[in-house]
């Protein structure tokens, strides 16, 4: 039973007998999950004095009709056993959703129409929705957290204009913030709603009715955090129907539709209604309902949500699939060794109520802040246990405790988990071996490797080859949603593993994407153009309609003669700057009417570290010996990375991974060359050592013999033979 409902029921059971017949909760509140008492009530009314009764009645009333809010209530089961979420649904206003009877007074069947359910009001009834909204999955647009290590960007992709622009609200170098390219928050939501979990940009604090983009949220509803995306257990959450709902801007209806609670019950989609919205005119109130599936509701209008605190990898995979094995080759993949060993993503990528999921890289602690929410939550706990704590004192204690707990974050990195972290507060975490992880021995591996390489360099991603491989990701390639088979050239083209140095100076495998967009160069700064603006030039070669079925992603390479007319058309407006095209790691521009291309800062690829799939030690780089990495053609140095993009690769210059890192080519090749002599070095060293050892033993024994012989000679009594000698 819903904890609050239980409390209400308890309160009601205590007081119903004296008030029975007089007490009527508002109809909308009757759906509270207390079960109607059937049969005779055996409990006797408790005799109470009047004053006490009044206080308790007020308390009971406040429990029954207290306004709903997105702040969680302090009712927790605190058990490892999952709580059965047999709860009433609530709409955006906090009203309990009550289905009309199946038949009306005349006996005609009635549709189960009601408002879409709101996660903020339904889940937020008991869970700290606001605090959750500050977690990594939702906080990017809020700008209230440190950006952390560069991660996977959202890539605005348009096949027709050959656009692929890495976007992020976090301000990672190499990405654009949506506003920088003229993309409103609403546009961003619509571009990526398919994989956005809600919150952040989807839930602005204020909606300006005069802003034509934001005002649409008055009709479409805010994109609340859809808790079931991750926490649903059955695997019946339908991402496809949610995505389709999002595409037609049925935003607030999408969680109900995705969860399979019902279908959209209107004739017009929210997009159509929002299109007719005019600034200054009132927002229509008769918005479509959800046609609920009655089978999902019990007689008390409660719904069972099969949810878990520990989402399964399949839930994570919807947004975090990353695969180099494409199409029919997917069966070749062993997937991550940790999953194979029975762990799930959340064993390492953990979080507290703040949903600041541990990302798992070393040094993450410095990228995490102790938020006011976390402090407040801890203060409440401290003061609950010790009421004598003053607010300030409790706050200091809370901050100190939370700082100590940050050490736990370090224990969930590869090194922290397998080897322990001295920063952790708990002794067990200091010792390592969490989750029965084996302590790596790394026999024969000189220590310098641990200073120069991340764990992932040898253990994560596909085994490095001569060329970086194409990889598809959920966020970039809409994996998880049905679409025509994606191929090697399906934009955006992302490659992995590219061995680059991270901010900590260690070499780690990365994914890499080259930006591709038309834009303006002014005062040395590049501003990308949105695809619709480029399309207006009508100079781009249109894909023949009969070719769409064969090549649905329009992957035919763009030729230089096709680039020139677009740049010429864009150049008509000189006020915005010089028209340019960024693609394949180069900047294309017109110089004296001729198309030229060259390197430019804006054309540099964006890279982010990868950490999965982790390979077992027997498949790590170096498992075959030093030559895995120290041969002259070892992929970590000599592996080639070819800029990928929409332009035909005739004049594209590929670079080695060593060059991309800025390593000295001569140093690398010389170092690799020295490995030819390494066996000789071993023989010489061991041989020399053996000689020195032999000499030491020989003379040591001689010395010992001299000492012991001398003593023996002194002890031996003189004899005739001795005298003669």
């Amino acid at each position: 039973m819903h904890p609050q409902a239980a409390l209400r029921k308890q309160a009601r059971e205590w007081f119903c007998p004296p008030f029975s017949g007089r007490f009527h909760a508002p109809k909308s509140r009757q759906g509270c999950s207390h079960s109607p008492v059937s049969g005779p009530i055996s409990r006797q009314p408790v005799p109470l004095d009047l004053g006490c009764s009044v206080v308790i009645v007020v308390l009971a009333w406040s429990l029954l009709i207290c306004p709903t809010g997105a702040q969680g209530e302090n009712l927790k089961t605190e058990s490892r056993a999952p709580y059965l979420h047999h709860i009433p649904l609530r709409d955006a206003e906090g009203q309990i959703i009550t289905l009309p009877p199946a038949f009306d007074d005349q006996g005609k069947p009635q549709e189960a129409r009601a408002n879409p359910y709101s996660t903020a009001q339904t889940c937020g009834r008991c869970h700290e929705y606001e605090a959750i909204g500050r977690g990594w999955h939702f906080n990017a647009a809020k700008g209230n957290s440190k950006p952390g290590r560069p991660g996977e960007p959202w890539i605005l992709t348009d096949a027709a204009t050959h656009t692929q622009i890495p976007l992020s609200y976090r301000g990672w170098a190499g990405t654009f913030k949506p506003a920088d390219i003229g993309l409103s928050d609403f546009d961003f939501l619509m571009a990526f709603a398919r994989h956005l979990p809600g919150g952040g940009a989807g839930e602005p604090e204020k909606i300006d009715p005069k802003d034509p983009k934001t005002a649409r949220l008055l009709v479409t509803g805010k994109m609340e955090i859809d808790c079931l995306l991750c926490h649903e257990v059955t695997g019946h959450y339908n991402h496809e129907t949610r995505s389709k709902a999002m595409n037609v801007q049925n935003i607030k209806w999408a969680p109900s539709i995705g969860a399979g609670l019902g279908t959209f019950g209107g004739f017009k989609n929210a997009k159509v209604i929002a299109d007719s919205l005019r600034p200054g005119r009132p927002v229509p109130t008769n918005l479509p309902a959800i046609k609920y599936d009655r089978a999902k509701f019990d007689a008390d209008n409660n719904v069972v949500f099969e949810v878990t605190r520990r989402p399964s990898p399949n839930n994570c995979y919807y947004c975090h699939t990353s695969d180099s094995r494409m199409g029919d080759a997917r069966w070749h993949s062993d997937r991550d060794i940790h999953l194979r060993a029975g762990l799930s993503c959340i064993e390492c990528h953990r979080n507290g109520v703040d949903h600041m999921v541990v990302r798992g890289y070393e040094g993450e602690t410095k990228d995490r802040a102790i938020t006011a929410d976390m402090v407040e939550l801890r203060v409440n706990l401290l003061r609950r246990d010790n009421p004598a704590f003053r607010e300030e004192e409790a706050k200091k204690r809370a901050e100190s405790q939370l700082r100590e707990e940050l050490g736990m974050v370090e224990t969930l990195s590869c090194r922290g988990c397998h080897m322990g972290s001295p920063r952790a507060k708990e002794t067990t975490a200091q010792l390592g071996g969490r989750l029965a992880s084996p302590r790596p021995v790394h026999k024969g591996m000189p220590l310098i490797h641990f200073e120069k390489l991340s764990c992932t360099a040898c253990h994560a991603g596909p085994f490095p080859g001569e060329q970086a491989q194409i990889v598809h990701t959920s966020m970039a390639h809409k994996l998880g949603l049905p679409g025509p088979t994606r191929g090697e050239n399906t934009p955006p083209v992302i490659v992995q593993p590219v061995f680059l140095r991270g901010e900590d100076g260690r070499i780690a495998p990365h994914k890499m994407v080259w930006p591709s967009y038309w834009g303006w160069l002014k005062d040395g700064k590049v501003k990308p153009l949105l695809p619709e603006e480029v399309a207006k030039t009508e100079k781009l070669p249109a894909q023949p309609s009969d070719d769409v079925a064969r090549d649905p992603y329009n992957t035919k390479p763009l030729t230089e003669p096709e680039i020139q007319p677009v740049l010429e058309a864009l150049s008509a407006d000189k006020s915005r700057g010089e028209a340019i095209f960024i693609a394949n790691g180069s900047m294309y521009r017109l110089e004296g009417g001729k198309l030229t291309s060259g390197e430019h800062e804006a054309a540099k690829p964006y890279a982010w570290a990868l950490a999965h799939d982790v390979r077992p030690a027997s498949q790590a780089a170096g498992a075959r010996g030093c030559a895995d990495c120290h041969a002259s053609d070892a992929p970590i140095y000599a592996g080639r990375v070819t800029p990928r993009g929409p332009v035909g690769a005739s004049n594209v210059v590929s670079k080695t991974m060593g060059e991309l890192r800025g390593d000295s080519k001569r140093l690398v090749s010389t170092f690799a060359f020295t490995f030819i002599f390494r066996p000789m070095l071993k023989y010489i060293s061991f041989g020399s050592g053996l000689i020195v050892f032999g000499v030491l033993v020989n003379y040591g024994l001689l010395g010992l013999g001299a000492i012991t012989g001398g003593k023996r000679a002194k002890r031996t009594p003189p004899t005739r033979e001795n005298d003669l000698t």
Partner: protein
Amino acid sequence: MIPTDNDPQNSMESAEAARICPGAKLAYAAMLVGGTVLAATGILTFGLGKAPMSGWVLMAHVSAAPLFAMGLAMVALTWADQARFGNTSSGQSVLTKALLWLILGCGLVVLLSAVTPMTPLFGASGQKALYLTHRYSSIVLTGAVFLHLINLARHR
């Protein structure tokens, strides 16, 4: 019976032996040259707080190692007899002799602690112990060689 240097014939032989043969000199020179490069790259890097070595410095260090190793082995073969404590005809002081044995002992530790990590015998903790052993035995070795050199020069 243990031969003594009081014997006149033995004294002549000893005087002959006291002269360091060119081979021994060459061995010592090789050890010295190799050791100087190793000390310059290794101890200086450590002293400057830039340990561990990498890149060109590491390659220079590793390149000089065989010369030092072979030099050390040759020194062991050619100098050991003169460094016997019972050998009074070598013209070397007890301290010089002791320093040579220290050089050989430390040299052996330095050699083995450098080359053993290249074999799949030790894990990370073993590697760390070997690395530290290599570092500190090298410092002792450098000091011993330096003092040995001074002593040799003084007795000449």
